[in-house]
């Protein structure tokens, strides 16, 4: 076990611009997880070369009507002990623009997605575990009738600050018989 002090700072600023003219809204959050390490051979504490390690990130999100855009800046200078060291340096590994046109949802850039329960395809993030396999590409979502939803995407998968090899393409249909048949009868 390591003998260390952990500092976790979470600052959540919310800024909304203009009420008279609709400039849209900008929101964000900031998360910093930093640790300092003390050598302690008596408890077999691992010897950590660096005195100070940190994972930090900030999300910024803009929304106006049907349009949303956002990005995340991540900083590993250097990544916390026991985090994959390929998390290295700074960058904006996540940025997207999204628009909803009468039920058709179009996303370009980075997105997370899950087909059904995720067994076949799941792109997600689990920051505490250092997991983030966001897609980078194009995604369409559409629900033609109540009870049927369609999704399609093409993209490359995130691999730390780069892309993994290959292209991933997927299409999914989710059919809910209750919604499709019985809701209509209620009307």
């Amino acid at each position, binding site marked *: 076990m390591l003998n260390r002090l952990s500092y976790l700072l*979470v600052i959540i600023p919310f800024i*909304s611009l203009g009420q008279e003219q609709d400039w849209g809204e900008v929101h964000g959050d900031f998360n910093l997880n930093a640790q300092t390490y003390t050598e302690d051979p008596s408890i077999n504490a691992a010897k950590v070369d660096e005195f100070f390690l940190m994972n930090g990130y900030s999300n910024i999100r803009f929304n106006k009507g049907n349009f949303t855009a956002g990005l995340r800046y991540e900083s590993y200078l250097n990544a916390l002990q026991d985090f994959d060291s390929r998390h290295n340096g700074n960058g904006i590994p996540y940025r997207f623009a999204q628009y909803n046109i009468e039920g058709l949802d179009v996303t370009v850039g980075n997105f997370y*997605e*899950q087909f059904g329960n995720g067994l076949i395809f799941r792109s997600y993030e689990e920051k505490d575990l250092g997991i983030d396999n966001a897609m980078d590409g194009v995604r369409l979502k559409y629900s033609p009738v109540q009870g049927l939803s369609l999704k399609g995407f093409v993209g490359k998968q995130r691999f730390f600050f780069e892309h993994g090899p290959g292209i991933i393409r997927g299409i999914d249909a989710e059919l*809910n018989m209750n919604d499709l048949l019985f809701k209509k009868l209620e009307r």
Partner: protein
Amino acid sequence: MTMLFATVQITFAQRTLPKIDLKTMENTATSTAAFDNDGKPIVISFWATWCKPCVKELNTIAEEYEDWVDETGVKIIAVSIDDSRNMSKVKPKVNAEMWEYEIYCDPNRDFARAMGVSSVPHTFLLNSNKEIVWQHKGYVDGDEIELYEKIEELAH
């Protein structure tokens, strides 16, 4: 190991609720656009079956929920961020604790991400225009008192 937490909340103006797809406990599709309480306050609480403070918060509020509703008309919407593997535990948990909240599931954390939720519990308070006017991360005994004070401010 010592842990220090600092949370700074700076709220200048209102934030509208983002429109995000969600699932019900029965795994049918719905959306945050369906959240409604006839102009009365709404509380959105992000939780997970594996999160002890979340369950504690929701249980503590459940003891007084009936009174809260009678006095302010507030509605509590509890959104579970349990992933697909744990999603099946949501309904049994809700039934076991006998919660009367509106429960939704956000298995890929889309709604949580759009709201800037990085850890649970994270609770938001919405006014009659469904704008976010207050939020709180974490839960310690007594936080529900502060939440109720904010709800009362909105209701009266």
